[in-house]
């Protein structure tokens, strides 16, 4: 008799109509598991199908079938055995008693190899005949409870798993089914089949652990899992997946409903990718939005794949994760990128548009508006008045506010200025620092950031939302702060640029009005700049002179020297000074003094030379003159020295010569005067000759001395107010005796008392000299006239004689030194030739003049003019 036992499915299945929602434990390898389960299920089904029959088919072919049956039993991998009892056990006994009896009286009547093996027996043979309690522990509570269940369950147990430890200490797991036969109210035998599910179980456990891990992992990753049995149209969603859709956990879902939850824009795509995979069996992946029951939208990343059997998709599985965070981050990044792009654009504009800061500020304000998603904004800058900000630029509804001023601490800008920090106000109308003058509703949310230079606030950039509900977030604020930095830099640059231009202007003004010629050269020695005076001077344009053009203006003979000096100084980065000639606009070469110094940047970099030149031509010539003058002066000094020596010599010599002559004079005088006794006439004669001769010598000496004195610069006149009349009379008186000798008469005419500033002695001597000459060069019995005449500022004294006169030619010479004019009387006249020279000198020293009017044989008139 063949008994086939049913083995039920261990799975629980809730089967509902139509749409099926499987509720089961999760499996990692769905497919393998499914197959494994499928095969088990098939097997179980197969077994189930034969459950009804209690006897094997084909009783007639009993021997054949018996053999087949035996073979089947023998070779089965399942353990099959039959228990017989020593004595039947009445069913009415207590469970406990029955269990006890089973232990003691049940014995293995039949067992196959597999069964024996399960109990550690090598063959069924050794197994057979053993009572239960000989290979099962009576005290083992598991066995006891197993047997109790068997009894209580109507002598049936199916699919029971139990655990055993084999002789080697290994854990073993079996699945066991046993059916007992009850006849006449007693249990008589039992059949048992058993599977060694140790491996299966450990695999299962391993699998379970993996499943658990997966579950945990999935739970941790909130990855949703789905499975779609296409044949049965059974869609299975994991708990996580349910949550991902914001649905309640007990929600069941269909594909149609799923599609309904997909964002309309993504629906087509969703269908497409699924269908494509179903056709191709290729995996897909796509992002899509779904809508939750509360209306919120979320982003999911779905992956899936269809599995084909014989070209037809039978099943699809997939996973799903929420990518809201990523999408949000992407959105944030995109937004930040757009901010950065705008900042970058602003920065580029700012750096490129020196001198166009209004434009840059406008662009900054505009970008700020874009970043903050509002068209309303303004920029305040500090005005000239103290503690006041003025709106420089405005956009949107604030356009009309340009020029509006605000004090420190007032309103948003005023407060930002005061605190030097950015401020965000979310409800302006309730803000404590709001401007009272603003109408309510003008500003809702506002943000202001300071524009700063070197830590000082110079302005405020502000943006405003005028509709409620809109706010400014921190990303926007930091973007605004970057923009405000740019604005500050722009303003600062503008200021620096202006200062630079002013400085340039000042330099140019200075350079062009300075009286010096200015030039600048670059690092290559070439000239880059000449000031206006230079160009005017050379008559050439800056274009002609720059580079090396300047060399054409240099005097060719000086060019080498000029260039070498410049080059040497340039190479050594040292100042230089040189003189050379340069062609002026009129073609004339002028000496100039050129001084150059090296230029360095603020970081010490050599940048070329700068220099200035002045026209020193006049000075140079003057210097030459000065040198000549100096030479002349020194020559003059030498001459004067020599002259002085000469004068001193003359003075000394004269003096020395006088001494012996004086002695001669005294002694001859004594002799002549018979001091030493009487002298004979002849002695007297000789003595007189000697005396006269000596006198002549003395005269010569006197003349020499006087001339030397008159010539010397030390000749002193004692000019005092004198009555010229007196001097004239004195002079005439002194000549009287001389004139009487020749019977000459001196007549004085027009003598009036007149005060003249003169050296009385010298004038007297001069007049004596003239009168003497007049006497000497006149014949006896003639008249000499001295006439005085005053006219205006002049006094005129004319000495006239009617003597020999002088020729015109001689007239010029007679006032010279050493001159004696030859005339009739010259041999008889004593004289040294100095007389008239002295007279002229004396008169000249008095500021007067003397001249002669004469003709030969007609006498002469000497006219003396003296200033009054």
């Amino acid at each position, binding site marked *: 008799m063949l008994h086939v036992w049913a083995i039920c499915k261990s799975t629980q299945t809730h089967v509902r109509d139509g749409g099926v929602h499987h509720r089961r434990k999760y499996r990692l390898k769905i497919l393998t598991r499914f197959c494994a389960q499928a095969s088990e299920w098939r097997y179980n089904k197969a077994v189930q199908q034969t459950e009804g029959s209690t006897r094997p088919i084909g009783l007639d072919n009993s021997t054949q079938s018996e053999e087949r049956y035996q073979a089947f039993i023998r070779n089965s991998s399942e353990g099959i055995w039959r228990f017989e009892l020593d004595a039947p056990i009445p069913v009415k006994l207590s469970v406990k008693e029955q269990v006890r009896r089973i232990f003691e009286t049940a014995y293995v009547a039949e067992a196959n190899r597999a069964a024996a093996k399960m109990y550690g027996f090598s063959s069924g043979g050794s197994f057979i005949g053993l009572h239960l309690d000989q290979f099962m522990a009576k005290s083992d509570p598991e066995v006891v409870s197993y047997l109790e269940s068997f009894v209580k369950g109507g002598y049936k147990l199916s699919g029971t798993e139990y655990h055993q430890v084999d002789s080697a200490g290994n854990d073993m797991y079996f699945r066991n089914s046993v059916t007992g036969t009850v006849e006449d109210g007693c249990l008589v035998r039992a059949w048992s089949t058993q599977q060694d599910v140790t491996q299966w179980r450990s695999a299962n456990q391993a699998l379970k652990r993996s499943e658990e891990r997966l579950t945990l992992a999935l739970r941790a990753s909130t990855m949703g899992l789905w499975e779609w049995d296409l044949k049965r149209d059974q869609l299975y969603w994991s708990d996580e997946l349910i949550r991902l859709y914001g649905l309640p956990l007990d929600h069941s879902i269909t594909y149609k409903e799923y599609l309904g939850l997909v964002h309309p824009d993504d629906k087509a795509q969703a269908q497409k990718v699924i269908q494509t995979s179903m056709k191709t069996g290729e995996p897909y992946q796509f992002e899509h939005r779904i809508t939750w029951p509360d209306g919120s939208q979320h982003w999911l990343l779905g992956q899936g794949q269809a599995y084909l059997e014989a070209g037809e998709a039978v099943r699809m599985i997939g996973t799903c994760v929420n990518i809201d965070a990523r999408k949000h981050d992407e959105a944030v990044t995109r937004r930040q990128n757009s901010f950065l792009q705008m900042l970058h654009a602003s920065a580029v504009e700012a750096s490129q548009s020196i001198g166009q800061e209004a434009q840059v500020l406008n662009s900054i304000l505009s970008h700020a508006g874009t970043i903050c998603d509002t068209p309303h904004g303004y920029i305040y800058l500090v005005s000239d008045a103290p503690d006041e900000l003025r709106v420089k630029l405005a956009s949107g509804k604030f356009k009309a506010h340009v020029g509006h001023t605000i004090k420190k601490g007032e309103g948003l800008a005023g407060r930002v200025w005061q605190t030097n920090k950015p401020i965000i106000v979310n409800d302006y109308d309730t803000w404590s620092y709001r401007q009272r003058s603003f109408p309510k509703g003008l500003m809702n949310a506002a943000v202001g950031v300071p524009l700063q230079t070197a830590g000082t606030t110079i302005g405020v950039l502000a943006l405003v939302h005028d509709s409620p509900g809109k706010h400014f977030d921190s990303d926007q604020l930091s973007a605004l702060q970057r923009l405000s930095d740019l604005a500050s830099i722009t303003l600062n640059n503008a200021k620096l640029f202006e200062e630079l231009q002013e400085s340039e202007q000042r330099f140019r003004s200075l350079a062009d009005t300075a009286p010096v010629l200015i030039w600048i050269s670059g690092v290559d020695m070439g000239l880059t700049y000449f000031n206006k005076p230079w160009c005017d001077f050379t008559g050439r344009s800056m274009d002609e002179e720059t580079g090396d053009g300047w060399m054409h203006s240099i005097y060719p003979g000086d060019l080498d020297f000029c260039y070498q000096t410049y080059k040497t100084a340039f190479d050594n980065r040292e100042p230089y000074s040189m003189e050379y000639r340069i062609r002026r606009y009129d073609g004339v070469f002028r000496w100039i003094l050129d001084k150059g110094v090296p230029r360095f940047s603020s970081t010490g970099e050599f940048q070329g030379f700068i220099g200035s030149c002045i026209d020193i031509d006049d000075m140079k010539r003057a210097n030459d003159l000065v040198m000549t003058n100096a030479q002349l002066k020194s020559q003059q000094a030498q001459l004067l020295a020599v002259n002085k020596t000469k004068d001193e010599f003359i003075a000394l010599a004269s003096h020395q010569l*006088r001494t012996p002559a004086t002695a001669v004079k005294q002694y001859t005088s004594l002799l002549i005067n018979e001091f030493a006794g009487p002298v004979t006439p002849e002695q007297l004669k000789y003595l007189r000759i000697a005396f006269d001769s000596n006198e002549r010598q003395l005269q010569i000496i*006197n003349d020499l001395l006087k001339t030397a004195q008159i010539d010397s610069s030390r000749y002193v006149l004692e000019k005092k107010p004198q009555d010229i009349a007196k001097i004239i009379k004195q002079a005439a008186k002194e000549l009287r005796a001389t004139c009487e000798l020749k019977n000459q008469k001196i007549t004085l005419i027009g003598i009036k008392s007149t005060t003249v500033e003169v050296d009385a002695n010298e004038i007297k001597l001069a007049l004596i000299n003239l009168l003497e000459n007049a006497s000497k060069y006149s014949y006896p019995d003639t008249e000499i006239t001295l006439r005085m005449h005053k006219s205006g500022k002049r006094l005129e004294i004319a000495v006239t004689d009617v003597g020999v006169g002088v020729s015109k030619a001689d007239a010029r010479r007679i006032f010279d030194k050493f001159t004696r004019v030859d005339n009739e009387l010259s041999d008889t006249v004593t004289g040294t030739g100095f007389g008239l020279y002295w007279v002229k000198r004396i008169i000249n020293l008095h500021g007067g003049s003397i001249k002669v009017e004469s003709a030969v044989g007609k006498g002469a008139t000497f006219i003396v003019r003296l200033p009054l």
Partner: protein
Amino acid sequence: MTVAKRILVIEDEIILQDVYKLVLTSGGYAVHVASNGIEGLKKLKSVQPDLILLDIFMPLMDGKEFLRNVDLSEYPDTKIIVYTNLSDKQTQIEMRQLGAHDFIVKSSMTPSDLLAVVARHIGTSTSSSPKRRTNQ
């Protein structure tokens, strides 16, 4: 008998010293000589002359220096005649400034001229002269 007027001749040329001495003594004056300024100063003190004939060009101490070294207030009655062959104006002025009463160029004077000049200044030897004081 009246005391002869004294003349001090300060002159380095001996021949001239001699002739002046000769001439002036013949004029009745008591003549004393010195050969230079230093001697002159000494003789001045001892002689207390009525007149000094002072040469300029002398060794050891010249006439200028002599005058500088004389306290003329001690000799109020002494006439000083610079008797020299240096005839330049400058010297004349200087000597007058130093106290000389007259300046005469030697070479222009004969012996009789000299006597005349001396008489003009201090009178003849025997005549009385004004402001004469007896020395202690």
